[in-house]
């Protein structure tokens, strides 16, 4: 009886006996990584965490990164380049623990050409500087891939740097406003306590002048984004909430400056700068989103950056942007086809799951048309392109105009409010002016400006920004990540929910497997498991996880093993021959059975045993989720797959759901559009490139992702596959958001009424403004915080009940 070991590197169960330095490994790939690390004295990697490694896939093809030798590619990727120094940043989604940081920051010990490497754990990225005379960019990337951290390289994702700098600018604006506000407040205290009269000659003036100087950067720098938003709104002939706010700020500052210059008072600059400070914090809080997630991927992010072309028998690596029609391209195992093309040579087994959600491999013959986005399994194939990548079938979606314009964010419901607010405010100011014109005309200007200063709609804005910001973080805690806070409002308005099938309501992690045929003995079971463990094919992996580990350990070992890609595996042990694979491969006398789901056939010693029927596994909790959604929303399912699972889906979703199969990517987009033209607010939930158009078209598009590091198409939100069952709750929470904001609005209006009633009597003093302003801001922020926590609690209770 042998003991069981877990791989020292990645933690997987070891089946074969692969040992180095007394440690067991699951595969040779992991062992090689271990040996490389131990050679360079980096075994600390294994001390910091148990089995930190990323399973070496053992499929290291030498040419995959060949395009990184191309000068034009290099210059696009690197940050800085000189003859003996290159700086580059890669995003490594695999970074997950302390050991990763340790290993990645010690790269220079493995390759002396690397000068320094620094990890940013939160961004999951690495900064590397290396000497190109000692090591090439390609070698660096290959080293990273070898130790398990394959960089996801894209030439488009440099926009991250721009986000960072706007974020920094925002922080500095807040910092400046906060600094000036607190100092102005400090300098205003003497005046509050001395009832507006300071005896010391000149001191009053000094305070005023310092306050004046301090307020200038707030007015010109910190508030600039508010002003530019207001101007943008006005040029589009819309009154957004920034218009009345800008007006209030403008009047506050100009009246204060007037008082300072004419020595008639010290103005309202303390309240004015304070308001700007609070509003900037609110905006920052609301916009603080998820840096690591990318919501704006285009199809280019999915495609390889480089491709091998083979013209006139000469192989050459070129960046994909240079690919032209009638080029001959070489597509290797596991490579994505970059453009629609015709198969010229080789055996093509294409996985189109990415493009249309179909799960089974398609075999293609020479002369057949292959669509871009398919993935080749098996040996290399030679293709002749008939379209350039941007004109291919799948990428044509992106030529649709919806990808070129920013999604029309449905007008936030605070904007109509701001319109009413502005109208009411202006009429109050107008009436007050008329009244004072007849009673005491010297007070007209004072009252008019006081009304406009005190009745700033900023608390309306604060209420919205803080409530949405809080809600977004609460939702994020439950693994639904929103692109921005306005998505919450759109979610609250949803009437129709459209699901994609494969990968959305089914999971890729688990399959339902059924065995049909002659019962297998324990030894045969072990044999199949052992064989499947050697293959990295999707079906082999599912089979491997499905088969139970028998109590007696596998006693045989495989003597001969060969895998024919797209067909099956042949394995020989000392006493038996095993073939598992598709029907052609495991020569079977099948009764011409049509298999709609994927099947793996088994043949042992030339006797056909039976097949494993592998079908999709619906997500846990799907039934309950559908039942809850059905009460309130109209559901639809659009699948690019065949209709094998029609019956099963109808059982879950019931009769009211429209279920469509064989829907093309464009078809999905059109379907959503038609729904919208009939007045529906559509929520689209999908996962693949084929859903990208529909996700874009829908009012809200949520991309489902099993693993946050994976690619997900452009969308408004990304949801963890496991959290999908909570969708009804998220929608309910979004609807509660409106109530929460209304509470905040109500309170802010009470403050406004108090303020305005004082202002129209001409009784408002800087000291009252300075007290009212922070109190109202702080209560609003508190209310926003409390209501979002409170509604989360309510939902949690209803979730545990149901």
């Amino acid at each position, binding site marked *: 009886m042998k003991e069981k070991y877990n791989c020292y590197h990645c933690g997987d169960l070891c089946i074969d006996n692969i040992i180095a330095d007394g440690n067991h490994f699951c595969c040779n790939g992991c062992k090689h990584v271990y040996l490389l690390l131990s050679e360079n004295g980096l075994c*600390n990697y294994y001390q910091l965490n148990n089995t930190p490694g990323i399973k070496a896939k053992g499929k290291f093809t030498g040419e995959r990164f060949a395009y990184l030798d191309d000068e034009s590619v290099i210059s696009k990727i690197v940050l800085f380049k000189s003859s003996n120094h290159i700086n580059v940043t890669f995003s490594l989604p695999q970074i997950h623990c302390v050991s990763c940081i340790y290993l990645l920051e010690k790269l220079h010990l493995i390759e002396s050409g690397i000068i320094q490497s620094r990890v940013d*754990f939160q961004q999951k990225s690495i900064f590397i500087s290396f000497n190109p005379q000692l090591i090439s960019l390609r070698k660096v990337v290959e080293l990273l891939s070898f130790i398990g951290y394959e960089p996801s390289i894209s030439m488009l994702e440099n926009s991250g740097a721009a986000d960072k700098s706007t974020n920094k600018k925002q922080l500095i604006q807040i910092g400046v406003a906060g600094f000036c506000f607190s100092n102005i407040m400090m300098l205003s205290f003497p005046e509050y306590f001395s009832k507006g009269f300071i005896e010391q000659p000149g001191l009053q003036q000094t305070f005023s002048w310092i306050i004046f100087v301090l307020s200038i950067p707030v007015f010109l720098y910190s508030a600039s984004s508010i002003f530019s938003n207001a101007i943008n709104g006005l040029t589009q002939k819309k009154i957004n909430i920034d218009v009345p706010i800008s007006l209030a700020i403008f009047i506050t500052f100009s009246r204060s400056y007037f008082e300072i210059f004419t020595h008639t008072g010290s103005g309202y600059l303390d309240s004015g700068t304070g308001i700007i400070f609070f509003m900037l914090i609110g905006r920052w809080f609301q916009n603080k989103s998820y840096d690591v997630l990318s919501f704006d991927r285009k199809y280019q992010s999915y495609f390889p950056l480089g491709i091998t072309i083979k013209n006139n028998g000469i192989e050459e690596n070129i960046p994909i942007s240079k690919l032209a029609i009638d080029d001959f391209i070489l597509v290797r195992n596991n490579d994505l086809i970059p453009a629609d093309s015709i198969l010229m040579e080789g055996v093509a087994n294409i996985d189109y799951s990415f493009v249309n959600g179909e799960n089974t491999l398609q075999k293609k013959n020479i002369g057949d048309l292959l669509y871009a986005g398919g993935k080749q399994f098996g040996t290399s194939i030679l293709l002749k392109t008939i379209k350039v990548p941007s004109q291919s079938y799948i990428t044509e979606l992106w030529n649709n105009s919806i990808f070129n314009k920013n999604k029309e964010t449905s007008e936030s419901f605070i904007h109509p409010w701001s319109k009413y607010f502005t109208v009411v405010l202006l009429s109050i100011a107008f009436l007050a002016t008329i009244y004072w014109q007849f009673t005491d005309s010297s007070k007209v200007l004072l009252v008019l400006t006081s009304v406009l200063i005190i009745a700033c709609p900023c608390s309306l804005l604060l209420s919205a920004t803080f409530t949405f910001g809080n809600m977004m973080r609460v939702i994020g805690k439950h693994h639904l990540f929103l692109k921005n806070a306005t998505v919450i409002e759109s979610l609250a308005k949803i009437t129709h929910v459209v699901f994609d099938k494969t990968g959305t309501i089914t999971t890729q992690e688990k399959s339902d497997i059924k065995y049909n045929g002659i019962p297998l003995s324990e030894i045969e079971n072990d044999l199949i498991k052992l064989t499947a463990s050697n293959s990295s094919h999707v079906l082999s992996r599912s089979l491997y996880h499905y088969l139970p580990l028998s109590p007696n350990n596998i006693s045989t070992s495989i003597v001969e093993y060969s895998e024919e890609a797209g067909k099956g595996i042949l394995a020989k042990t000392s006493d038996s021959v095993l073939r598992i694979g598709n029907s052609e491969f495991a020569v079977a006398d099948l009764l011409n059975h049509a298999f709609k789901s994927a099947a793996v056939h088994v043949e042992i010693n030339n006797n056909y045993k039976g097949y494993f029927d592998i079908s999709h596994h619906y997500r846990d909790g799907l039934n309950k989720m559908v039942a809850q959604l059905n009460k309130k929303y109209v559901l639809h399912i659009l699948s690019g797959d065949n209709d094998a699972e029609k019956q099963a889906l109808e059982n879950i979703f019931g009769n009211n759901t429209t279920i469509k199969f064989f829907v093309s990517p464009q078809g999905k987009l059109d379907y959503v559009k038609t729904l919208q033209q009939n007045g529906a607010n559509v929520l689209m939930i999908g996962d693949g490139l084929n859903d990208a158009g529909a996700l874009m078209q829908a009012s809200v598009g949520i991309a489902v992702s099993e693993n946050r590091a994976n690619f997900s198409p452009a969308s408004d939100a990304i949801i963890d596959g496991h959290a999908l069952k909570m969708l009804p709750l998220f929608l309910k929470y979004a609807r509660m958001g409106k109530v929460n904001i209304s509470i905040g609005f109500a309170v802010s209006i009470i403050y406004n009424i108090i303020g305005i009633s004082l202002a129209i009597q001409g009784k408002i003093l800087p000291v009252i403004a300075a007290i009212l302003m922070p109190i109202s801001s702080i209560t609003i922020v508190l209310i926003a915080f409390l209501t979002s926590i409170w509604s989360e609690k309510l939902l949690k209770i209803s979730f545990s009940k149901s």
Partner: protein
Amino acid sequence: MSSLFIILGVSIIISISFLLAFIWSVTNGQYDDHYTPSVRILFEDDDNKLNNEQISK
């Protein structure tokens, strides 16, 4: 009381220096990564190269 004028000036200058420090720390990227440095400091320097050849960005 006239010492107030001097104190005012000094206090403003001190607080401005804090503002400048804040602006410097933001632009310098001190807030970019809150996690990695806390881990990095715990690794033993089993090599001297890193210390000697710090690369200036």
